[in-house]
């Protein structure tokens, strides 16, 4: 009956992946670690619930519980603390106006895969903001809530990061 397990598992996976991956994404700095943790969560779920035909009332909550356990193990193993940001350390003195033209260039003119690669050269907080905006289509407010900083900081950093990306892109072309 393992094919039945796999179909059931995939249905649950597809329905919960976005929410669970977002949850872990904001708690771990390194992207490949994020992927490993997500895999571990689902493998645990498959092994202890799906394969044993157990029932769970609220699958999403259960997966978040597993996620918290995995994250605790991860922080201990890396001897790290969870990533945190604050408005004080991320305050930008200059008032960055949202620049429609830079956004337009970046989104419509530049090669997407090159832009994606250059995001890795930004500061961690900016990587998270850009990733959350384009991968998960989160609003500034939602990103602010997830990162525990103000919406204004997110917005300002977002547009600053776009400027930085444009600069890096043009430097790479030379």
């Amino acid at each position, binding site marked *: 009956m393992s094919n039945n397990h796999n179909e059931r598992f995939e249905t*649950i996976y597809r*329905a919960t992946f976005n929410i669970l991956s977002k949850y872990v994404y904001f708690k771990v700095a390194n992207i490949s670690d994020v992927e490993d943790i997500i895999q571990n969560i689902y493998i645990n779920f498959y092994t202890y619930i799906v394969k044993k035909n157990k029932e769970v009332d609220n699958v999403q909550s259960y997966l978040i519980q597993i996620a918290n356990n995995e994250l605790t193990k991860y922080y201990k193993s890396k001897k790290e603390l969870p990533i945190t940001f604050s408005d004080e350390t991320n305050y930008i003195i200059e008032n960055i106006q949202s620049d429609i033209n830079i956004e337009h260039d970046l989104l419509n003119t530049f090669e997407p895969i090159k832009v994606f690669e250059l995001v890795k050269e930004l500061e961690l907080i900016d990587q998270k903001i850009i990733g959350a905006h384009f991968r998960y289509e989160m609003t500034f407010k939602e990103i602010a809530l997830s990162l525990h900083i103000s919406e204004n900081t997110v917005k300002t950093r977002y547009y600053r990061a776009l400027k930085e990306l444009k600069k890096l892109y043009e430097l790479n072309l030379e």
Partner: protein
Amino acid sequence: MDKLKQTFNENLLNEDKILHSINHKINPKNGWFYHKAFRLSFGLMTLVILSLFISNIIQSQPDKIVKTVGITTPRNQLAYALVSVDINPSFELYVDKNDRVIEINPINEEAKTLIIDQLIGLEVQDVVEDLIKQAQDLGYINLIDTNQNTVIISTINYGIDGEKIIKNIQVKLGSSVNIDRSVKSYIIRATDDDREEAKRENVSLGIYMLNGIIQNKGVPMSVQNFVSDLNNLEILEEYAEKTNGTELVEIIQALINELVTKGIDVTSFQNRLNREGEDLEELIDDLKDQFESLNPNTNSDDKNDDEYEDDESDDDKSYEDDSEEDDDEHDD
């Protein structure tokens, strides 16, 4: 924007790639997922039959196994949300995990007069906008009669982010320049139980929800009859999803972006958006006025003729005034 989003989807926490890795760890020898397509054996046929059998059991006893993950469409596809659109044509839109419409079910005869095939595969908010636009063009929405320009959108999510669907529809309809401003849309959250009851009473989900919020136990009222009563309208305004500040900002940003593509200088609008205390709804109206000035219709041409007559007389007057002023200046 789509290409960049797609690139991020493909390269950052890609759902399919991670599933593939999980599969290798769960079933290192089998690799069932990617080999399934190539099996032609009797075992594959058994698997398909077994899956249909088990999915029937899951649908008939959903509470026992996994709660509300997916719904089977009339054509046996798996959807993760249902959006019901009631104008007078009524539709059910079945939505996949990527917020794209995979099936459209016209509920009444009027609905069959709209073109829906080309909408399959589009994002749900685009489909909702297009259906309303078609209904408007075909005269189902009467722009003059305020009882006939209301759209009720009911949403049920079956395992995906329902908030996102509602927000995307709000932003799309709020920033649409294809739908007349007088058209009022209300979004109501519903549940699977509501849908079952609506089917039992043989009414669309939107009609069922409207009558439910005023606890009408008699003959179900149509949308038109419902909104003709101001008390009902007040209750609906309270009950329906509100467009909050974040959505208003997104609507404005979408309108600004659209103006940029038309080569319009948007600096003043952008400054207003960034200004604290700005009346965002007024800003939206001004942006829509800008759009209308780019595409004047025949009605506004008639209006312009009337204004021309008035302006002509004003011009004569102002010439006299100006000439007097010039004389004065010359003297100085």
